């Protein structure tokens, strides 16, 4: 295809996009009945993120207006959108918000998120109580683990709120807290044609349980069809996305470099 031809094609495509936008805009503003109210995330000190209640808060609030939670996790776990509930789709603003919220808790796309609530600092973490299946409490979502089960959660997930008693100490010269690192942003999937299933735009190692983020609790990035279980039946890995660290460098992988148990950690 000559550049000039492709240019022309782009103009046509662009015109289509604009008209579709206008159409979509009015279609969108007509029905806002189900729109959620999000607090706009803003960049703050890592310890001051929008925080979920700590266990202690939960305990102390049991007699207050949170009494309905009553510590009955099993009952709380059922409070979630049903699988076949209609799901708002094409919510670009929601997607943007969801990605921004993700970015706030991660150093880069693919980094393990920090823990936005207090934890018991020594016991074997009871994280799985909420994070095994995922849970929604009011507006807050405790996402399910997107990876196979590991027990030592704090190995990878740092607390955004320190457990150390915080004091404003007049501590003198020391390491600067400023860091100029700029992390990789989440990539977007592509579609072969309008209406084609989008490709998976991220590594699936440690992010293999799609429903954890894209299931019924995945505000902003949820699937329109969360009842379907075999995601990669339709959603291929992005062609430009290299999944395996061995790709490219060394085709003749030496025998000692093969995994002891392939797929053990990354099905």
């Amino acid at each position: 295809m000559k550049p000039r031809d492709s240019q022309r094609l782009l103009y046509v495509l662009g015109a289509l996009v604009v008209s579709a936008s206008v159409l979509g805009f009015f279609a969108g503003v007509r029905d806002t009945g189900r729109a959620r109210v999000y607090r706009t995330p803003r960049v703050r000190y890592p310890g001051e993120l929008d925080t979920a209640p700590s266990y202690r808060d939960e305990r102390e609030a049991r007699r207050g207006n949170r009494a309905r939670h009553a510590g009955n996790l099993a009952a709380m776990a059922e409070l979630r959108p049903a699988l076949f509930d209609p799901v708002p789709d094409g919510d670009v603003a929601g997607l943007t918000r969801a990605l921004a919220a993700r970015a706030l808790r991660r150093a880069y796309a693919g980094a393990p998120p920090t823990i936005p609530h207090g934890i018991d600092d020594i016991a074997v973490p009871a994280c799985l109580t909420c994070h095994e299946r995922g849970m929604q409490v009011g507006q807050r979502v405790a996402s399910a683990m997107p990876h196979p089960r590991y027990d030592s959660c704090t190995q990878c997930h740092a607390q955004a709120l320190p457990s150390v008693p915080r004091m404003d100490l007049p501590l003198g010269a020391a390491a600067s807290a400023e860091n100029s690192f700029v992390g990789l942003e989440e990539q977007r999937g592509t579609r072969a044609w309008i209406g084609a299933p989008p490709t998976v735009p991220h590594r699936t190692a440690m992010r293999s349980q799609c429903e954890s983020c894209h299931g019924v609790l995945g505000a902003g990035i949820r699937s329109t069809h969360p009842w379907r279980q075999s995601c990669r039946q339709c959603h291929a890995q992005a062609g430009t996305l290299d999944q395996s660290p061995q790709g490219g460098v060394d085709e003749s992988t030496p025998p000692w470099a093969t995994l002891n148990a392939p797929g053990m950690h990354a099905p």
Partner: protein
Amino acid sequence: MDRREALKLTALAAATTVASRRVLAQARNPAQNTAAIDPSVVRRMGTDVRWDKAPCRFCGTGCHVQVGVRAGRVVAIAGDQLADVNKGLLCVKGYHVGLALYGSDRLTQPMLKRNGRHEPISWDEAIRIITDKIAADPAGFAMYGSGQWTIPEGYVANKMVKAGLGHNNIDPNARLCMASAAAGYVSTYGVDEPASCFDDLDHADTVIMWGNNPAEMHPILFSRIVDRRARGQTVEIIDIGTRRTRTTGFANHYLEFKPHTDMAIANCIAQQLLASNTHSREWVERFVAFRKDAAQPNLLGEVATFEEYRQKVARYTPEYVSTLSGVSVEQLRMLGRLFGDPAKRITSLWCMGPNQHTRGTAMNRLLHGIHLLSGHFGREGDGPQSLTGQPSACGTAREVGTFAHALPGGLLVANPEHRHETEEIWNLQPGRINANIGLHTVEMWKRFSTPSSEGGSVHTIWVQVTNPGQSLPNLNRLFKPSRQLADKFLIVSDVYPTATTREADLILPSAMWVEKNGMVGNSERRTQQWFKMVDPPGQARPDAWQTLAVARALFDRAIPGMRDKDGNFLFEFKRPDGTTVPAWEWAHFYDVNVDEQLFEEYRRFSRFKHKDLAPYGEYVRARGLRWPVVRQPNGVWKETRYRFIEGEDSYVARGKRVQFYHSTSRDDRAQMWLHDYVAPPESPSPEYPFWLCTGRVLEHWHTGSMTMRVPQLRGSVPQAYVELNARDAVRLGIANGALVLLESPRGRLVIPAWIDGRGRPPEGSVFVPFFDERLPINDLTLDAHCPISKQPDYKKCAVRVSLAPAGATVTAPSPASPAPNRGG
């Protein structure tokens, strides 16, 4: 089409349009295509991120990470799924290791202290100043390096000092971290480093943590153990410790012992094995010999007999050891039964607990001893294994031999044959290597902090890749006095301002991690390699270049040691066509792969002690290889998982089953040592009634110079604290977060309390992490050390604990009145 579909399609179409425009733009103008890199070596995610492998910068586990680089900067990290060690997983530090490069206060130019202020100078001037100091009196110059030196960096420094300056005053901070483990291996097996490897963790029935908290310090290894439970396997964890930690939470049994009595517990296991006749007769008859300390303790000791051993341990009955250690008789019997069961696969893990110990070498020997006596050795999951805390404590400190007593490849300064072999490889005049062992860490800094007129023979120390101003014990004795002495000159190469650079006379900005090529060696004998991926900031340069430049400047001044016996410079680098590259000139440092050429020279040393290393290219392809890496008849380089075991180790003769081929008794047997429990040099007293233990936390690595600059890690643990038992706190009227005054005979510190925090010490003991330079706990610690390994004990000394008086601040901790040091 409803409105959802419409919106979704709109968004998609917009994204597609933008993407296709970019592709077209690149196709039209290839010059703008910045990613024009050989596609065969580039792996991509998205269109512009280049991924490559590197071992993690932090601890001795040696995880491999995939580093994502875009536009000359690290933008993402992923676990390397091909890596045997971590199999795609990382810990909280590893996931954020890329951020360690981008703290806003990186050192970017050489600086000289003039009139109390650090002023920028040129590299040429900095090199000249160092050269002046060395040339004036080479004998008074010492180098203090690190287990974070890459292998080539350590090799250059080692050769410059030991060949070039004709003395052995070079020692790494690894002296503070695993010298006792090294001494334990050498005196037991005749050669350093573990016989087994991390594969044990996948197979052990029982893992014993000896004074070890891997849930925080070696998280990947710990998850290799506990994740087996998630897969439905059973693995028993026994935590033998002096305080409850995150590891304790996962343990089936927690045995809390009084500090230092771990020696008695080890002897108690031996006593029970012999008393119940459950020791391995085969091992005693075929594979072990017995040793005891000579009057002057050393690595070799004196020959002993099985009968002497039997008599020595006889008194360590569970009842006696229970009173000594505080561990219950039943728990001690459980350990005895465990080791007496030949079917069980038992892995012992330890790190700083037994190493930072005034009887560290003895404690290490005893741990090997109980495994040898019971025959729990040499099978997958069945054996003793020490861990290390630095990425190349094994690779550089131990294997390159940057210790004051060592030469590369496990050779020793004290051995005339070893010196001769070194002189051969380095092409030196016979007798050039000084036969006198150099100054070990504590002695080096003691002499630096002593006036020259009073025997302080060290006038200049060049520190690379470490932070002694925070990490040395008893800073008020070993570090601070030197800063008041006009003729003591401190040179520091580092990447960030630290407690050490602040006190330095000359600061050199260094390149770190993937800002340079590198090789390191982890705790399981695995040698690893990576390539430079991004440029260092400003004028920061690799430490290897810094040392080379100084060595060349000394050569130019005709310092004789900088020439080999043919008159050539000690360090020669060749292009493929055979011409010499002046790699000591910064403009030419990257003309060739300096790392590769240094490694190929160093590799020749690896044959003497059967620590065979493969050619550099093999490491480029692999995610590390465990030595000895032996070339097979089919040309494949084969690594070794289990040393001394037939079928695993190429150097074990056929039919031997187990062969300790470097046995110091020269009969292929390992040595089992006799050691009595010895009381620690300082214990709580009415005046100082608490034990003080120091250590690390998961989020911070060592002195925090890197991790305190990573927002996620700093946000998680923003400051140090003292962990205090709740009962002690109530008794002393200390609330959570209150300021506490800690005092030892050597120093004092005001620090906030954390009660029922992450670690929970028993009554009568406290714990303080050492990562926070603002709260320097090493003002209080003891510099008493093991008589053989010279490793100091950071794990126990006596302190007084009280609520800090009103108005006390945490700044400017001041030394207590000078007190005699009670240790050696």
